[in-house]
């Protein structure tokens, strides 16, 4: 009950600040506030807060869960395609990302503990209770419950070849969460997609392991590398996913099922994937050297990480522009960069680097695509209509 009152009083103070500012009584605002609190503190109170008083059902966890569900077809196909070792890679990366986030939270929690003890020093409580509440605080302080670490881990796993040594996969998970996400302030503060940054980190640190696509089932180059070497590829197999590659990137159909789910759920939209893939197709037609060749185009679209990147990595909320115009610009930039990397670059792949590069440009893109407020007129009030 005491808790409820203190909460109501807190809200009251907040709203009073609002009102005091509105009426412009800045000097008298304190009196007003205390009077209200004094008057109501002992009486029956309703909760008070600023408008609006209703909220939609969407939550951060819900969105993350939707992404996890949407990645399930791709992960499932990866396991079916590459065998049980894929499960091990997926589990290891997820465990390493979640554990890193948990431990980091614990460390931060530990740093804050002395202060908490001070405030509690007056209260005598049973040690068992203390422990329960400590565990509770840890879970509240650490952010693993928002599921974002699971998403990062899963995405990273889908970006790794199945033959990857497990310790490298785990290291990637630690890098993604610790360096890219938590050190920059945690959820919502990272400037690069953590999973992709970790993939690039692994690609630079362990190039052989990261490009070893030879496994029991498939030998030889990925279809994209074969395409680059001028060989024929089977586009139907590429669409279904029966080719060499990373765990999650091979099956276009599985990725599209997940993408459709996300679009239907309203989690992502067509702006970035559409402008990204559209620009990429145009680029390939113009500079690919094959002109408008449907087979070559289909192979370029289905091959490599384009589908995974366009629908699941480029659309990552935190690292894409928030402005609507900016999202188109971002998509077009990614399409151009991917085209340049794939066609003019030394390797066959380009999606990861294109997206990472795009992530870095987001603040700039946002700055130049700042929306104009509704009804805004240049030159003041009576400008052109």
């Amino acid at each position: 009950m005491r808790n409820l009152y203190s909460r109501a009083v807190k809200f009251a103070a907040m709203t009073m600040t609002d009102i005091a500012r509105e009426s412009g009584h800045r000097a008298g605002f304190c009196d007003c506030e205390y009077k209200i609190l004094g008057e109501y503190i002992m009486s029956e109170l309703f909760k008070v807060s600023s408008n609006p008083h209703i909220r939609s059902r969407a939550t951060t966890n819900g969105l993350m869960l939707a992404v996890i569900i949407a990645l399930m077809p791709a992960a499932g196909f990866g396991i079916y395609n590459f065998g049980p070792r894929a499960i091990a890679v997926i589990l290891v990366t997820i465990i390493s990302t979640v554990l890193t986030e948990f431990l980091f939270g614990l460390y931060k929690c530990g740093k804050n503990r002395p202060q908490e003890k001070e405030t509690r020093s007056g209260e005598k409580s049973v040690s068992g209770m203390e422990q329960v509440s400590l565990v509770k605080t840890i879970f509240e302080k650490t952010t693993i419950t928002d599921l974002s670490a699971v998403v990062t881990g899963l995405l990273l796993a889908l970006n790794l070849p199945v033959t990857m040594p497990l310790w490298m996969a785990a290291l990637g998970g630690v890098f993604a969460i610790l360096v890219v996400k938590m050190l920059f302030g945690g959820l919502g503060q990272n400037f690069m997609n953590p999973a992709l940054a970790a993939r690039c980190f692994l690609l630079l640190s362990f190039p052989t392991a990261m490009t070893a696509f030879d496994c029991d089932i498939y030998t030889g180059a990925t279809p994209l590398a074969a395409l680059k070497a001028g060989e024929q590829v089977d586009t139907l197999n590429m669409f279904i996913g029966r080719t060499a590659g990373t765990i999650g990137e091979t099956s276009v159909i599985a990725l599209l099922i997940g993408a459709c789910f996300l679009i239907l759920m309203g989690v992502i939209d067509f702006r970035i994937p559409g402008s990204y893939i559209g620009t990429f197709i145009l680029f390939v037609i113009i500079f690919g050297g094959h002109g408008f060749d449907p087979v070559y185009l289909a192979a370029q679209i289905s091959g490599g990480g384009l589908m995974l990147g366009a629908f699941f990595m480029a659309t990552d909320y935190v690292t894409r522009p928030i402005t609507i115009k900016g999202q188109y610009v971002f998509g077009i930039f990614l399409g151009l960069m991917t085209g340049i990397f794939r066609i003019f670059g030394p390797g066959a792949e380009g999606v990861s680097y294109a997206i990472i590069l795009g992530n870095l440009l987001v603040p700039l893109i946002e700055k130049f695509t700042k929306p104009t407020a509704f009804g805004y007129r240049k030159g003041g009030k009576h400008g052109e209509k």
Partner: protein
Amino acid sequence: MAKLTFVGGIHPYDGKDLSKDKPIQDVLPGEVLVYPLSQHIGAPAKAIVAKGDRVLVGQKIAESGGFVSAPIHASVSGTVKTIEPRRVATGDMVMSIIVENDGQYEEVEFGPPRATLAQMNREEIVGAIREAGIVGMGGAGFPTHVKLSPKEPDKIEYIIVNCAECEPYLTSDYRRMLEEPEKLVGGLKVMLKLFPNAQGILAVEDNKPDCIARLRHLTEEEGKISVKALKTKYPQGGERQLIYAVTNRRINSTMLPADVGCVVNNVDTVVAIYRAVMEGRPLMERIVTVTGNAVAHPANFRVRIGTSYNKILEAAGGFRGKPEKVICGGPMMGFAMFGLEVPSTKTATALLALSKDEVSAMEPGPCINCGRCVEVCPGRLIPSRLADYVEHFDEKAFMEYQGMECCECGCCSYVCPAKRPLTQQIKSMRKIQLAKRKK
């Protein structure tokens, strides 16, 4: 044909079924009525009665305190008990006239009904509206006679009656349109008389097809009046969004509707204009919806202004269960109240009691940059960034990102998956800036 609407907006649970089929009933106003002197935007009214005076129904008890102000009339007969500061729904203490009801409801003479509209000139009509104390009854409370006196009346092309009622749960305008559509159309005709070059538009959201049919039938013969159906979406009834939907003209926060040749008035206001001009009756009552899942019998009431919310709630059968939150107005833009012992005013559209407070039940998390707030913002702003600037008290960036254009509709807070209080943050900064401007 594409439906008339604006870009952005949300579709919250509308809850209108609770009270939409309940005909308007009268409420007994109780023993004591409180008339706050500031029920409108602008200078507070000045009391012209003193303690101990006897007042009658319809008697003016306070006169305007300036041009942008409005007089206040007694809605019951009785004795002035005292004049003292009282708490109003917004939480403020406002100087109020307190009248003890004698239960006689003795009326002043309202004067003979006006002969015909044709015989009245502009000054007479605006004068009657000013004397009747009419203010915008949709919530803002801007004195109506000021709205009806733009610098160039000839340039007004559209008189829009805001029948959108886009706030969830509210049904007072809906009932008014169903039960007294003649008065609504009559009030619009009065306004059309003021603006010779204007055409009248009744803008109704398409979730009220019965109202649209009714009003269309009534205005069949009227050349200058049309009924337009709007897409059902919040905040369709916001002034800027409404003007855009109906006329495709845009205004910003520094402009008035008259700047693009429009005048916008709410349903209740237009009916009040009709009664003031055609029947000579001042503004003494309004329709209040009492609803929410914590109200025993949700209903619509004709309330004498000044009646305590306790009395209005009693008429609806009191609470069902224990309410956690009581709101004056709708759930998107209304004010949460501490208690019920506050008077209803000219701008009180509803009393909403909710058994659960969704806001305090959800802990705000970090922004994940999802961009939902940007997509729904009818002002085309970036609410999450603005809120960020408020958190760091970066006034310059706040102004650069046009934070002052926010209309405080609440869409951004509503959709935020991280449950951040975006509207509240932007609102508080806007108030600081507005206070600075005044200095």
